[in-house]
C-alpha cells in the first residue's frame, strides 16, 4: 500500500534514510505524520484520506484529535514503534485506535507497517498502550526491591534470565533505557491512573533530578 510522509520532527520510530521513509511516495491515500508528538494537533484534517497515521510518544491519540464523550474516532490512528531508550527500535508497532475508529483505517495502517516487515498490534487509546502499561510497574518494583535489599541488581537480572528465559533482566533493561526517561513515562502513567505501581521509583526520581540539574550520568 502506498503512503506519503509528513515530517513534523525527528521520529523515534524510523531514522532518516530508513527504507520505510525512502519507500514513501509524494501523494497517497495514507498519510503518516512522523514526529507528530512534538507538535500535537499539527496534522492536517482530511476526511478524504483513507487513513492518517500520527506518531505518538507517551501521549494519548486524543491529545491530537480531541475527544467527544466516547464517540471519537475517524480516519486518524496513532502509532508508535516500541523502543527502549536509545536502543534501536524493535519490530513492534502499537497502533492506537479510538472507540469509533473504522476497521478499514486499522486495516490500512496494518498493511503499511506489515509491508515493512513489522509486527502490528492494536491498542485502545489508553495511557502506556500495551508495553509501557505492563512493563513500567515491573521496573518500578525491581528498582524498589533493589533499594530494599531483596537481592542485588545482578542477581535479579540473572533470576529473570534463567528463571523466565528473558533476554535481559529488569534492572539492566530499565537502566539501558535511561532511568530519567523511565521517570517521564511513569510520571505520566501515574498522573493518569493514580495507582502506586505507576509512581516513579526513587532511583528514577534521582535520575530525573540529576538530568534536570544538568548532571546526567
Amino acid at each position, binding site marked *: 500500500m502506498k503512503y506519503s510522509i509528513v515530517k513534523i520532527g525527528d521520529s523515534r520510530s524510523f531514522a532518516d534514510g530508513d527504507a520505510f521513509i525512502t519507500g514513501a511516495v509524494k501523494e497517497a491515500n495514507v498519510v503518516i505524520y512522523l514526529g507528530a508528538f512534538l507538535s500535537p494537533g499539527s496534522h492536517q484534517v482530511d476526511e478524504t484520506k483513507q487513513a492518517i497515521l500520527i506518531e505518538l510518544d507517551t501521549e494519548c491519540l486524543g491529545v491530537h484529535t480531541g475527544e467527544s464523550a466516547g464517540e471519537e474516532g475517524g480516519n486518524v490512528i496513532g502509532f508508535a514503534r*516500541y523502543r527502549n531508550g536509545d536502543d534501536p527500535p*524493535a*519490530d*513492534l508497532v*502499537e497502533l492506537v485506535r479510538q472507540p469509533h475508529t473504522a476497521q478499514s483505517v486499522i486495516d490500512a495502517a496494518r498493511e503499511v507497517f506489515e509491508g515493512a516487515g513489522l*509486527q502490528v*498490534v*492494536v*491498542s*485502545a487509546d*489508553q495511557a502506556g*498502550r*500495551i*508495553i509501557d*502499561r*505492563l*512493563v513500567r*510497574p*515491573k521496573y518500578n*518494583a*525491581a528498582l524498589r*526491591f533493589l533499594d*530494599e*535489599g*531483596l*537481592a*542485588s541488581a545482578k*542477581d*535479579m537480572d*540473572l*533470576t*529473570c534470565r*534463567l*528463571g*523466565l*528465559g*528473558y*533476554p*535481559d533482566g*529488569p534492572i539492566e533493561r530499565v537502566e539501558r533505557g535511561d532511568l530519567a526517561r523511565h521517570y517521564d513515562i511513569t510520571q505520566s502513567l501515574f498522573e493518569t491512573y493514580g*495507582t*502506586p*505501581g505507576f509512581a516513579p521509583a526513587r532511583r528514577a526520581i534521582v535520575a530525573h533530578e540529576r538530568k534536570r540539574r544538568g548532571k546526567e550520568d
Partner: protein
Amino acid sequence: MTQVIKTVGVCGAGGTMGAGIAIVAARAGFETVSYDLKQETLERAASQTAGFFGKSVERGKMSGVERDTVLARMSTTTDLGALAGCDLVIEAVFEELGIKQQLFRDLNGVCAEHTILASNTSTLSITEIASACGREDRVVGMHFCLPAQLMKLIEMSPGMNTSQQTFDTAWAFAEQAGQTPVKTQDKPGFILNALLVPFNNDVIRAVEAGVATPADIDAAIKTALGYKMGPCELLDLIGLDTQLRLCEAFYPVTLDVRSSAPPLLRRMVAAGHLGRKSGRGFFTYENKAMFGG
C-alpha cells in the same frame, strides 16, 4: 565452613517438582532418597525419571552405564524414618504453611542432628516454615524452577534464624549439583514470583480494561521484549487457578494492590477457564494444541 553433603532426601518426590529435584541431586552424584505418602505416586515418578534419563542417553548426554549408575543412587520410600541418614532434606510438598511446618517438625524428630532442611516454597516465608520445628538454624529456602531437572536457577533464602553455615552448605550443594544459586531475602515470592505475579495481574487487568486482546498483548511482549512466551500464554500454562492461589497468598501479606486478584481472574476461575488444563483460558486448546485467541 560448610558441611559435607552425601545423601539428599526429597519430600513430595511423587510430584513434578519433587521428582525433578531428585533427578538434579542424583545426576550430580548424591545418594537420593525420594519420599512421598503414596507408593503409586513414587512409582509413577520413578517411571518418568527412568524415561528422562533414557532420553538423555538417546540424545548422547550420558551413556547407558552412567544412566544405570544414577538410577542406582535413587531409592524411594513412604517411610519418613528412611530420611534419617540424609544430610540434606528438600521438601516440595503442597504449598500450605501448616503442612510444611508439620513436615519439618516430623523431620526434626527423625533426622540426624546435622541434617539441613530446605524448603522449595515459592511464596511462603522460610522463617515461618522453620518456626518451632526445633532446628530453625538448619532451615533454608531453596526455590527451584519448573522443570527442576532442566532449569538451572535456585533462589536461596536464609530465614531469620538460619545459620551462616547452613546457608553456605546449601549454597555449595546447589553449585555441586550444577545449579546457579542466587541469594534473596526471605520475602514473599522472593525475586521471581515477586516480579511475575503482579505483572501477570497487570496483564489480566489490561485485558479486562479493553486495552488489547490477549493475542495482541502476547505478540507485543514477545516482539518488543524478546520473551519466549507471551504472558497470556504463560498464564494459561501456569493455570488461572494457580495464579489466583498465588494472589491469595501474596496480597494478605504484602497489601500490594498489584498482587490482589483481578476481578476477571476470579470470573475466569469460577467459569472453569483455567487455561491449558481445562482446554480454555485466554486461548482455547484442542488436542493440547493452541489454535487461537
